[in-house]
């Protein structure tokens, strides 16, 4: 049991306790969820759910208003309704839902906000010198304020790994708390960048710091570093969320990001959430997938369930 003394945002003493993790056991438990056999109605249910939990993301230096606009259209209608109805000839399969959010750089927020107005889809923005986080705190706060001012209602920040790995946990905590304050009413997702932390013990510690500092969600990765989201890392974070909930009564959300490409993987994650935190976490308010290429595979699987055959890939747009 690792206990770290620090002070919270109000100057009060705070002890952050991180349970030790047995890597072998955690990995074995995580692998268990790959053996769940989700078929028929429950598969369809899970696939629809996974779409509604998707954060479609474009985070490239080459992002342009045109690119962001097109991604937002995909977010509204992952597949054109007419095509789905025509293909499936179904009256009883509900329409394909829109995704949960579109995630872009701060400079692109206003474009996304405009396209998504009235759709109910959230606009998330990475801030805080994503993906490295190697900028002064003042810059990070300015960036956060800018994104929020432009209409982002979710902020995906990165933790200061430089501080974390050098043992300056107070700095990590303070930055999260400061960004949380800068967010105002916007939801804060804290990216731990687990691929840079080196052990599941540290994943657990970083999760605890983020949750205590005010994270609404904790998120595995930026997607820029390998490995990104894995089942064991996600499991450890879910268990941290469970313990935090039973201690404080606060429900923190979870977002695995990067590396989840197939519908099959998505279902494994949903089973893991279901059996670790319970079904009450299976809503976009508390669980998200940071995954873009996964969406088309899910659509393909839904078409398959609806019609009994696989569709030609090109039926689904590449955006």
């Amino acid at each position, binding site marked *: 049991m690792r206990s770290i003394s620090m002070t919270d945002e109000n100057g009060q003493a705070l002890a952050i306790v991180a349970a030790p993790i047995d890597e072998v*056991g955690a990995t074995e438990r995580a692998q268990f969820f790959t*053996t769940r056999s*989700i078929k028929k109605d429950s598969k369809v*249910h899970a696939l629809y759910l996974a779409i509604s939990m998707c954060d479609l993301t474009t985070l490239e230096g080459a992002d342009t208003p045109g690119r962001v606009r097109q991604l937002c259209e995909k977010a509204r209608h992952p597949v054109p309704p007419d095509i789905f109805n025509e293909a499936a*000839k179904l*009256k009883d399969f509900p329409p394909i839902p829109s995704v949960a959010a579109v995630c872009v750089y701060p400079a692109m927020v206003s474009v996304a906000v405009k396209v998504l107005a009235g759709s109910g889809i959230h606009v998330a923005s990475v801030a805080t010198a994503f993906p490295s986080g190697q900028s002064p705190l003042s810059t990070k706060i300015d960036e956060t304020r800018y994104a929020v001012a432009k209409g982002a209602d979710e902020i995906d920040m990165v933790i200061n790994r430089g501080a974390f790995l050098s043992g300056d946990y107070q700095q990590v905590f303070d930055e999260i708390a400061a960004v949380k304050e800068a967010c105002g009413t916007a939801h804060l997702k804290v990216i731990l960048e687990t691929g840079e932390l080196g052990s599941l013990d540290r994943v657990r510690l970083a999760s605890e710091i983020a949750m205590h500092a005010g994270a609404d969600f904790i998120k595995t990765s930026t997607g820029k570093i390998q490995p990104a989201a894995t089942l064991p890392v996600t499991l450890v974070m879910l268990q941290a969320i469970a313990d935090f909930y039973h201690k404080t009564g606060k429900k923190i959300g979870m977002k695995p990001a990067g590396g989840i490409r197939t519908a099959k993987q998505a279902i494994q994650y949903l089973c893991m959430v279901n059996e670790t935190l319970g079904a009450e976490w299976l809503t976009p308010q508390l669980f998200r997938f940071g995954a873009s290429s996964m969406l088309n595979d899910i659509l393909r699987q839904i078409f398959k369930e609806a019609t009994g055959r696989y569709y030609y890939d090109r039926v689904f747009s590449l955006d």
Partner: protein
Amino acid sequence: MTTKRAQKKSSPAVTSITQKTRLSGAEAPRFEYAPSVQSSDFVQIEKRNGLFIGGKFVEPKSGRYFATINPATGEKLAEISEASADDVDLAVKTARKAYVNVWSKISAKERGRYLFRIARLIQERSRELAVLETIDNGKPIRESRDVDVPLVAAHFFYHAGWADKLHYAFPGQTIAPLGVVGQVIPWNFPLLMAAWKIAPALACGNTVVLKPAETTSLSVLRLAQIFQEAGLPDGVVNLVTGAGATGSALVGHSDINKVAFTGSTEVGKIIARAVAGTNKRLTLELGGKSAHIIFEDAALDQALEGVINGIYFNQGHVCCAGSRLLLEESIAKDFIDKLKRRLTKLRVGNPLDKNTDIGAINSEGELKKIKKLIQLGCDEGGELYEPKTCKIPEKGYFQRPCFFSNVSSSFTLSRVEIFGPVLTISTFRTPQEAVLKANDTPYGLAAGVWSEKGAKIHKVAGALKAGVVWANTYNKFDPSAPFGGYNESGWGREGGRHGLMAYLDVK
């Protein structure tokens, strides 16, 4: 085609998807797993099953048969021969003939080749064996498919490798096979126990007469088909099915050189008495009441999975089940809360459903025994927790996973083997007390220790009087690891180099 599908899909279950995916804040999210049932119709089961003697299936001289049932439904699966003393005598004579004329004459390398062939055939027919095991025994298909059958193949592969290398196992010593061995195995892991018994016996050059438990003969008889297919010489392995009387005839037969038994301590004692005064060798693998110690500095979420695996694996029908949980008092409350929540996630039901975590209790008698002990636990003052949300099928023999907290070492439940999904929990204050409590039992088969502190684990493990001690894991089996117990848990070891000694005369 499309219309047909559309009609099929307009079931109420699919309509509810619309509601579920609307995701309005008002409705509580749910995620039910639809049944995902392993098909079983490809496994043919003979209505009437003979004894396997001399490489052939033969009718019992007794002419008597008994039913074997599917514990998940209570329905009869097939009839099994009841071997009389005459049948057993024939089987032993056949095994003796095969030993003298064939098995002791061929080279060790040749013996190994048969075992390799058997191992490969087990892998090829693994799905069939897993389904049969699940139908006849009640264990979840996930376990028979992912644990039992792969381990069965592993045992044959492992011992195939030893067959021509026995001299290296005991350098400088003379070794010789014992002759004919009589083996009696239990119902909790029918195939795996057959593998634990048959593979080392054959590798060491002995011939075998084996009796499976009366409730679970089918998968072992299927193994006989594999022996035929592998071309194993006739009479090298013989199977006599039946209940206690058959077992007693086998154990008491004058022409066997060794008895190997896995089962209850009660029967083990009877066998020990029967064998006393003869020159038969004896190994016994009996009951257990294994302690599972969790220290406050353990990785608790992983320890929790270890506890679940330790006691609820195979419905708790495991001789080395971690049935006595010892919690350091400082973490007891939190850990018990975690355990309660975890229990609500266990899925009890149709063993053929791939998502079932806990299957059927093997027989009505066992279920009654478990229920009686649960009642006794309540009467003695234990606090019973049974997840109310856990649904169990109406037909068949099922028991919800449960545990008793607030249990003392002086309770009956702490001392007797329940052999079901029932855990007892007591607390301790120091490592010394943990060891004292763990060793406070007539048994000594296995133990588990959880701590992130290496030195503590070594110190505690060294002080535990148990044949197997798992550190930061539980119920891990490997053919190379010797298995066996202290005190009333048995005599001798199975598996690894130690296990070979039980089937060899080492001078």
